[in-house]
């Protein structure tokens, strides 16, 4: 029915788009290099974030995706200097020419809520329940700008209007509990935008909201970004949300970035088995990949084709206190070879798209082949499925000029 090449074509077109920004190193608003966050616990040192690097340009959105415990939130909090006191943070965070990790708490305070703002998952617990929202907005403005109360109030009303709260002036008198969940999140966004930040960090901004409200908030963020030109760092577990508003994606697993690239590329031509696993774990709203009722498998196969079952990732997330040796994903990876328990893959660019990086020990061509083959099988017949990754293939791969491949991985 659908031409399988059609979207690959789209992906191909999307690739150069990322390079429109000119020299990326020169213009990046945020550059994170080898960021590490370690938290001492009773059981030992927990490496929540283990050497991640990424860049974010003004006016762009980077989505950081991962499951709970992958380190995505901790890495975002590190930017704000909001990790617990006993956390050991190292690496470099270059924000608009300043090294954030070198700033003292007072300097950070001046930055937070001004050039650097954050919104959180649960708007109810992030707003003060005993103060009217107008008061809270005025406070956020006056913390950074030397303006009269009346002027700040004026600005607060403007902000509420900007984030699409009807009858903004009257709503200044409302307490948080008088607002709906979506409106509270709008107030949080208004507060974050109070001083026109250059970077907005959004940590699961829509997770607590209903889908229809989520759609409104995502549209709002996209509109505000267009109007104000800020960069957004979006932390989420939801690939759908990323697909909706992110330009680039970084997929995190066990404290590391395992794949990074333009949203289009990562979602249509993913190159890491973990990303494959995530994509195959999500039920879809349309198309044959969704299942059709448990009891119905046999009787309905003729009707719907053989596709259906979600393929969860086996096992459970890696321990961050004693992470697996070699590739951290190898215990859960269906394609792991014995060597993968020994060699730790670096994040390396793909040969056909230098802006798309993955940390995997399989050769890039092999991964491309596996993904497209499985995708075909997923949409195709049972026979094709059954022959996926046969033993013969496994042995062939194992003997496949190992040294050359490893060289490929490490030079990036």
């Amino acid at each position, binding site marked *: 029915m659908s031409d399988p090449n059609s979207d690959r074509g789209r992906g191909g077109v999307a690739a150069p788009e990322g390079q429109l920004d000119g020299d990326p190193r020169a213009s990046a608003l945020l550059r994170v290099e080898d960021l590490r966050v370690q938290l001492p616990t009773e059981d030992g040192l927990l490496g929540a974030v283990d050497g991640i690097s990424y860049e974010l340009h003004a006016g762009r959105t980077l989505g950081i995706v991962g499951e709970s415990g992958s380190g995505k939130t901790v890495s975002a909090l590190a930017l704000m200097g909001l990790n617990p006191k006993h956390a050991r943070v190292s690496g470099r965070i270059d924000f608009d020419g300043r090294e954030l990790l070198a700033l003292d708490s007072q300097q950070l305070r001046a930055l937070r809520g001004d050039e650097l703002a954050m919104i959180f998952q649960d708007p109810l617990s992030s707003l003060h329940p005993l103060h009217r929202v107008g008061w809270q907005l005025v406070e956020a403005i006056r913390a950074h700008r030397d303006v009269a109360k009346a002027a700040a109030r004026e600005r607060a009303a403007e902000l509420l209007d900007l984030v699409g709260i009807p009858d903004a002036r009257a709503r200044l008198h409302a307490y948080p509990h008088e607002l709906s969940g979506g409106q509270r999140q709008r107030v949080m966004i208004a507060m974050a935008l109070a001083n026109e930040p250059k970077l907005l960090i959004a940590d699961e901004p829509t997770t607590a909201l209903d889908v229809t409200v989520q*759609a409104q908030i995502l549209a709002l963020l996209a509109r505000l970004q267009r109007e104000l030109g800020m960069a957004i760092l979006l932390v989420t577990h939801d690939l*759908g949300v990323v697909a909706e508003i992110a330009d680039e994606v970084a997929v995190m697993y066990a404290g590391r970035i395992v794949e990074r690239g333009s949203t289009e590329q990562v979602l249509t031509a993913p190159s890491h088995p973990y990303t494959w696993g995530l994509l195959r774990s999500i039920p879809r709203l349309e198309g044959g990949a969704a299942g059709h009722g448990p009891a119905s498998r046999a009787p309905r196969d003729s009707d719907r084709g053989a596709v259906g079952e979600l393929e969860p990732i086996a096992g459970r997330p890696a321990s961050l206190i004693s992470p697996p040796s070699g590739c951290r994903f190898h215990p859960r990876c269906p394609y792991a070879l014995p060597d993968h328990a020994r060699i730790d893959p670096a994040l390396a660019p793909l040969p056909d798209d230098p802006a798309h990086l993955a940390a995997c020990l399989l050769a890039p061509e092999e991964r491309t082949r596996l993904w497209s083959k499985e995708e075909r099988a997923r949409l195709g017949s049972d026979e094709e499925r059954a022959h996926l990754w046969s033993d013969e293939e496994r042995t062939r791969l194992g003997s496949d000029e190992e040294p050359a491949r490893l060289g490929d991985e490490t030079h990036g």
Partner: protein
Amino acid sequence: MGATRSPRAWEMRHMAETLLEVRGLVKYFPLTRGVIVQRQYGAVKAVDGIDLTLTAGQTHGLVGETGCGKSTTARLIMRLLEPTGGEIRFAGRDIAHLGGGALRALRCELAMVFQDPYSSLNPRRTVGAIVAEPLAIHKLQPDRAARRRRVQELMDTVGLNPEHYNRYPHEFSGGQRQRIGVARALALSPKLLIADEPVSALDVSIQAQILNLLRELQRELGLTLLFISHDLSVVRYMCERVAVMQHGKIVESGPVEELYRSPTHPYTRELLAAVPKIPGDRRTITG
């Protein structure tokens, strides 16, 4: 994509066997004022006259946003709440106002899996004790060894290691805890299993494991499943039929594929349009 399908032979076979029939079900929660003398000044119409028919051996979805009354509906069917009005016919018998022994007996045939695998398990009891509790309450298999065998069998069914019988909930991950919840729900071999947002507290990869488990169990045990969720994609994966709820009413219902392909109610359309699409899904692009 294709033409409308004719009713499947398989569905026809089951058409006759209705396990649960809900007619005009109503639940109002009174709003009162005053401390000593309470006066009612209104009511929250949580469930406002809904009809629902569950065919034996099928999975039915109930989908809607926060506060639409879907969980209240589940609690009414479980008889954890007393309906304000309407009928709930379970296997041909009206259970809307059962009490005492009859209600107790009914609870052997209905079971529920809850949303939060953390708060729905008693942290001070072992997994064995938690799963065995329904058996103990209903005084089934009083023989200790037999009960233990049954519990281990259940743990095995849901993919838990039966040797972990003596462990406590905190030793398990979220996904495993949800498996414990499922094992407990299956302890009495219920006819109807109600799953209220069973995966929304779980990570995506774990969510898929639990969804597949529920599908398998449903298939193998021939359960009737009422699957409640806010997630339209998950409902599509799990269910044959779906009912969309809004403000305590069912606005639209029908076979999942048909309803998703051509929704007629504006609210259903709005819901479907709001779900973020993943571009990697080539079917989304063509569709």
